[in-house]
């Protein structure tokens, strides 16, 4: 198994370290040439979604990645990744053009839903399909405001959807890559194996 990690900006190294602890081979995607390698899944890390979206478009990665996801490639997006995968996004700059996105998941994401950095927080909470609570670190995080029927809600915190799955697509508003608990990554790897 080989996982592509989108490495345009953000906390991609943390995902790579998580995969390496789980004994999984991975490679970084910084340009189109990297993307053309064989892969079994894709991780879109946390970072700034406006930065990553713009680079995806400018580097010619937006369309090939969207097509791969629509073709069934398993994808796991954390935080900015959740925003990039969402079909609709609220909370963009009113005056700026809407940043480019993959928009493959039938969700509406609310950006910076908890406010500025003072609103960042850590909780332990339930994640459907994983026994017991898992640590969840939210950094200037989004949440899913609305999801259509084909989206399975995996976790809610304070009444907001913070983890969800739609077929081959898994998203979390929090950052499993920042904590030591590897079970959300294992959950994704199970999705990859069962494809």
């Amino acid at each position, binding site marked *: 198994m080989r996982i592509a990690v989108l*490495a*345009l*900006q*953000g*906390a*991609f*190294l*943390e995902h790579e370290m998580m995969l390496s602890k789980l004994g999984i081979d991975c490679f970084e995607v*910084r*340009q189109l040439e990297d993307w053309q390698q064989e892969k079994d899944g894709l991780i879109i890390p*946390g*970072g*700034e979604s*406006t*930065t990553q979206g*713009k*680079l995806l478009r*400018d*580097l010619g990665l937006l369309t090939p990645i969207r097509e791969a996801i629509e073709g069934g490639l398993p994808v796991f997006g954390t*935080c*900015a990744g959740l925003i990039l995968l969402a079909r609709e996004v609220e*909370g*963009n*700059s009113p*005056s*700026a*053009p809407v940043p480019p996105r993959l928009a493959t998941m039938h969700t509406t994401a609310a*950006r*910076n839903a908890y*406010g*500025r*950095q*003072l609103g*960042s*927080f*850590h909780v332990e909470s339930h994640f459907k399909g994983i026994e017991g609570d898992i640590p969840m*670190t939210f*950094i*200037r995080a989004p949440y899913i405001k609305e999801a259509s029927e084909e989206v399975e809600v995996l976790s809610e915190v304070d009444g907001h959807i913070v983890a969800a799955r739609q077929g081959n697509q898994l998203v979390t508003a929090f*950052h499993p890559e*920042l904590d030591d608990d590897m079970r959300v990554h294992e959950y994704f790897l199970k999705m990859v194996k069962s494809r």
Partner: protein
Amino acid sequence: MANRQELNRNLAQMLKGGVIMDVTTPEQARIAEAAGACAVMALERIPADIRAAGGVSRMSDPKMIKGIQEAVTIPVMAKCRIGHIAEAQILQAIEIDYIDESEVLSPADNIYHIDKTQFEVPFVCGARNLSEALRRIAEGATMIRTKGEPGTGDVVQAVSHMRLMQSQIRELVGKREDELFEAAKQLQAPYDLVKYVHDNGKLPVVNFAAGGVATPADAALMMQLGAEGVFVGSGIFKSGDPAKRAAAIVKAVTNYNDPKELAALSEDLGEAMVGINEHEIEVLMAERGQ
């Protein structure tokens, strides 16, 4: 506060591989965001103008900072003077995402830095070497940047600070455990932080380059030398075509190891900031706050 410190270190991790740009107006902030900046630094005057104007340089007007907070969705940082506890409290009150306790402004205290562990909002601080970096982290900084020599467009100081820091880290990694106590003494830094660097081969917080970065090549150079991201101050809005230069620097940071891509990015950027050489200037900002 331990939890807050961790969350604040985490925000810096999200900025990695990105470019943080100095902006003085909401309009510049929007240009920076559209060009792919991962955060902006709101300040009344960019370092090159601070240098030219001389006199005492202070925290920016909170109203001006709020205007920038409203203009963009990416994190907004702002500078306070070294040791100026009250300026930092004011910036916290307007919910700034990161405070830069910065040598670019006139220091308010010649001895003491702010006890940053007493704040909820995160701090980034400049450092010329591992000693300064570890002292700032001990005081609660959750992100470090090189000092460089701001407002010059001359990258030489950022290069020497980053090289020195990285070589001091490598030196610590190579030491026996029983040599770390003496190393802590020499570095004038807490033992537990010295031990962390020895064990992990890196700082416990994210480390960016800053000071004098003016071109995509400068940014790529700093990334190759081990920076985890780049601050660009005067380099963008003192140049001929800020939007284009900003976008090019963002891409250069992502593909810093691809000379062909860097060559394409470096084409037709218009005038770079004129700059002044480090030896031609009178005030060395990097010497402030050790």
